[in-house]
């Protein structure tokens, strides 16, 4: 019996294929680097439960093209009388492609007076940002915006 029958030589292609299969497993084993639109939906579901979201009332103000994704000025305002009978309780911010879908939740007290918040956020990539407002009557309203993120040409780490 020839030695090669006992130990059939794996072809180069087989080795490469098993190598790539191994690599695929390793990729699956690590945490995904980015959230997906599905993960954003799941994060939103966690906040609103079975309620439906209507479009309107909310105004999301974010530049369509940002100079650096590390610091993106963003503000959200919601049309509301902001009195005891009808007010905005919470404003949530979500993103589609950062490692995590949640950005922030802002809880407005009964004396807020105006439903408007502003902050600065990180956007890892060009993506959609969603603002959802929860009103005192239990309804949810949203606005969304697509933001294009550009990068500096000469950065510290190549």
């Amino acid at each position, binding site marked *: 019996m020839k030695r090669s029958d006992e130990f059939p030589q794996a072809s180069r292609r087989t080795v490469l294929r098993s190598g790539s299969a191994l690599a695929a497993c390793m990729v699956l084993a690590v945490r995904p680097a980015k959230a997906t639109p599905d993960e954003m939906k799941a994060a939103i579901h966690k906040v609103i439960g079975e309620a439906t979201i209507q479009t309107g009332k909310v105004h999301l103000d974010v530049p369509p093209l940002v100079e650096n994704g590390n610091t993106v000025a963003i503000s959200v305002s919601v049309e509301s009388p902001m009195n005891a009978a009808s007010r905005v309780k919470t404003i949530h911010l979500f993103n589609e492609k950062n490692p995590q879908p949640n950005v922030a939740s802002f809880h407005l007290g009964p*004396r*807020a007076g105006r439903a408007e*918040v502003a902050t600065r956020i*990180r956007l890892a990539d060009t993506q959609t940002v969603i603002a959802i407002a929860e009103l005192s009557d239990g309804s949810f309203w949203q606005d969304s915006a697509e933001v294009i993120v550009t990068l500096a040409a000469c950065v510290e780490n190549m």
Partner: protein
Amino acid sequence: MARALINVPAKAKPGEVIAIKTLMSHIMETGFRHSSTGDAIPRDIITSFVCSYDGAEVFRADLYPAISANPYLTFFTTATKSGPMTFEWRGDNGFVAKETAEIVVE
């Protein structure tokens, strides 16, 4: 060194809706980055911010790693009476910072 910049109007009329701006010194390390030697850099962020005034919590924020370094927050509240406004930031690794600003309402 924790340091904050807080912008509250010195004076307001009762019932006036006033803007409050806060800027807090913090790196907001996301926990998703690696050092040049390949080690994961652990998350170190501010997770919550609360502003209290005249016996009530007037604004609260839950923050995630997507908030930029040196978190900047602006919001509104209604001036009710003279007194202190307190601000509290809490975060990973036991981070706590408290600041106070006085407002005169008349």
